[in-house]
């Protein structure tokens, strides 16, 4: 589903990604771990077609980036630590706007489903700027799922969320994974990641330094695995 070969990303003289190789099969849930500044967000932004690779090949669902970016974006849902929502629109209006951007069929029904899914049906007519951080993030997840994408990218989605919102997010993530969607998620929360992902990749020094399947490692060993991978990179 996702295929990345020899990906290089440079910002001026600074090289962030140095020939990175990455693959994710359909239905796989990959947790992308790494220290701050390792290039996780840069990598996700390239997958999301928001940033252009300097060198290398990126394919998602068989479509090449950046040449076939429109076809890729149709199959992508992106959740970042920012909600990508308009404060002066209501929850329902925000979804209506994004639904029109994605040409979602039967939009009214779909919005009702998504609001129910993220637990905001009762607040559908409230302005987003009156929402708490957790509620905005829940709506952001609804926004990303509105067009039912095949691939979902989560960039540190637990940032700034309280325990209740984190649990709700975990529920949505499990639901997404259960439906066979391909998920790539960056996170610093190893405990939560250990319960959710089917594979753990460590990005360090601009490369995937280590990768392990969930079945190959005990949940308690994830921290040790991560530290070792970062030290060896």
């Amino acid at each position: 589903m996702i295929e990345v070969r020899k990906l290089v990303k440079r910002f001026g003289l600074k090289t962030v990604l140095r020939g990175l190789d990455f693959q994710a099969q359909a239905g796989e849930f990959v947790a992308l771990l790494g220290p701050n500044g390792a290039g996780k967000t840069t990598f996700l932004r390239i997958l999301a077609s928001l940033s252009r690779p300097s060198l290398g090949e990126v394919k998602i669902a068989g479509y090449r980036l950046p040449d076939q970016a429109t076809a890729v974006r149709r199959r992508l849902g992106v959740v970042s630590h920012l909600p990508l929502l308009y404060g002066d629109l209501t929850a329902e209006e925000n979804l209506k706007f994004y639904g029109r951007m994605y040409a979602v069929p039967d939009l009214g029904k779909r919005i009702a489903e998504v609001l129910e899914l993220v637990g905001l049906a009762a607040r559908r007519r409230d302005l987003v700027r009156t929402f708490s951080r957790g509620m905005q993030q829940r709506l952001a997840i609804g926004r990303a799922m509105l067009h039912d994408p095949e691939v979902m990218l989560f960039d540190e989605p637990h940032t700034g969320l309280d325990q209740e919102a984190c649990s709700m997010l975990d529920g949505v993530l499990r639901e997404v994974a259960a439906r066979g969607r391909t998920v790539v998620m960056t996170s610093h929360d190893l405990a939560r990641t250990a319960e959710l992902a089917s594979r753990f990749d460590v990005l360090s020094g601009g490369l995937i330094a280590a990768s392990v399947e969930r079945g190959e490692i005990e949940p308690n060993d994830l921290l040790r695995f991560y530290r070792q991978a970062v030290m060896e990179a």
Partner: protein
Amino acid sequence: MKNRAISVKNSVEPGKTDSPSATSAYLGALWAVVWKDLIAELRSRELLSAMLVFSLLVILIFNFALELDPQTRSTVTAGVLWVTFAFAGTLGLNRSMATEKDRGCLDGLLLAPVDRSALYFGKALGNLFFMFSVELIVLPIYSALYNTNLFQSGLLLVIALGSVGYVAVGTLLATMTVQARTREVLLPILLFPLAIPVLIAAVKSSSGFLQGIDTAEIMPWLNLLLVYDVIFTAVAYMVFDFVVEE
């Protein structure tokens, strides 16, 4: 909220979206951007109120600063009007793009599966609507304060063409500068030199209509205005994708 089981079925199967024709998807996205900007502005009134207050203050200050006889008035009116529209327009363009930067909304727009020129035209149409709204309020007030009739078809045409050119290049540059920390300062620095051909042509043709000069003499300026409108719009259409991408 309880961490409950989620059993909602999706109405869209993966890879089987009812893909509408490319044109209707393009127009749908373009209209969605305009609709979103209008609704948000209707609620906040941040953009229009800033533009209006600024415009009225400028007109009022000029009214007191210049002791005008009717002859002088017809020669300076075009300049006063376009100074007002240009600076108020910059305020509006800055504010319009700042709302996209807030909460990362620009990324949300860029993730949409449409040709990115639809985003540009959507934003430009919204900005044009706000500029026209301010002009529609400013013109009668100016007419009353300066005892001049500004509701002449020729002058209205010039104002429409000048606004289109200004907004066309302004929306593109506002999208570029919105990423910068000093965007409020950067936009006018970049915009005014580029918009000079439009502003000069607009001032000259406005002045011509106000002084009752023969239309044949004004036509070269009007043509220039029209050409710049087309060039700016075409260039913005071609380069917008590169401007917004990292």
